[in-house]
C-alpha cells in the first residue's frame, strides 16, 4: 500500500467514521442501558448531579459525534463511488454490498435526524436549558425517551448492515 494516496485517505475517513460512531452509539447505549434505568433508583437530592452535569456533557459529545459520524460516512461513500447506489439500496445496480451498506446508511441518517431534530430539542426542555411549563416538560421527556429508544432499536440492524457489507458480500 501507499501512504497519502486516495485509498489511504478513504481509510482515514473510515477510521474517523468508526471513532465518531463508537462515541455516538456508546453514549446512546449509556443513556438507554445505564443512565435512564438508574434515574429511578437515585434519590431526588442527587438527581441534579445527572441532569445538571453528566447528561448535558454526555449530550454534547453525543450529538456532535452523531453529526461527525454522518459527515465522515458520506465522505467515505462518496470517495468510494457507491453513495448513489447505496442510497438506492442497490436497486439501481443490483450490487448486494451496496444494498447492505445503504440500509446502514439510511438507518444512520434516520438516527442522526432523530438526535438533532427530536432528542436534542426535547432534552433542552427536560434539562431546563429551555424554560417550559411542567406538562410540556413531561411531554418532552416522553418524546425524547421514545426517540432515544427508537435509535437503540435501529442501532442493531444499522450495525449489522454496515458490518455485513464489509464481511459478507
Amino acid at each position, binding site marked *: 500500500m501507499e501512504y497519502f494516496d486516495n485509498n489511504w485517505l478513504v481509510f482515514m475517513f473510515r477510521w474517523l467514521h468508526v471513532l465518531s460512531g463508537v462515541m455516538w452509539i456508546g453514549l446512546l447505549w449509556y443513556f*438507554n*442501558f445505564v443512565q435512564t*434505568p438508574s434515574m429511578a433508583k437515585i434519590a431526588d437530592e442527587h438527581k441534579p448531579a445527572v441532569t445538571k452535569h453528566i447528561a448535558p456533557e454526555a449530550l454534547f459529545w453525543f450529538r456532535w459525534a452523531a453529526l461527525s459520524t454522518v459527515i465522515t460516512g458520506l465522505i467515505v461513500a462518496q470517495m468510494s463511488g457507491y453513495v448513489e447506489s447505496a442510497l438506492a439500496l*442497490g436497486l439501481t445496480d*443490483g450490487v*448486494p454490498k451496496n*444494498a*447492505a451498506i445503504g*440500509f446502514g446508511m439510511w438507518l444512520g441518517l434516520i438516527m442522526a435526524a432523530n438526535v438533532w431534530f427530536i432528542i436534542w430539542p426535547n432534552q433542552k426542555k427536560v434539562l431546563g436549558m429551555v424554560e417550559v411549563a411542567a406538562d410540556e416538560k413531561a411531554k418532552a421527556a416522553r418524546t425524547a425517551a*421514545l426517540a432515544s*429508544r*427508537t435509535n*437503540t*432499536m*435501529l*442501532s*442493531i*440492524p444499522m450495525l*449489522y*448492515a454496515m458490518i*455485513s457489507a464489509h464481511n459478507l*458480500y
Partner: protein
Amino acid sequence: MKNPLDSLTGTVIAGLVITALHIFYMINMSGG
C-alpha cells in the same frame, strides 16, 4: 397494547426483528 420500546428487552427484540427483515431482503436480493 404496551409500547415495546418502554422496555430494554422489547427494544432489543424489535431491533433483532428489523435485522431479520433486512437479512430476508438481502437473501432475496443476492440469492444467498
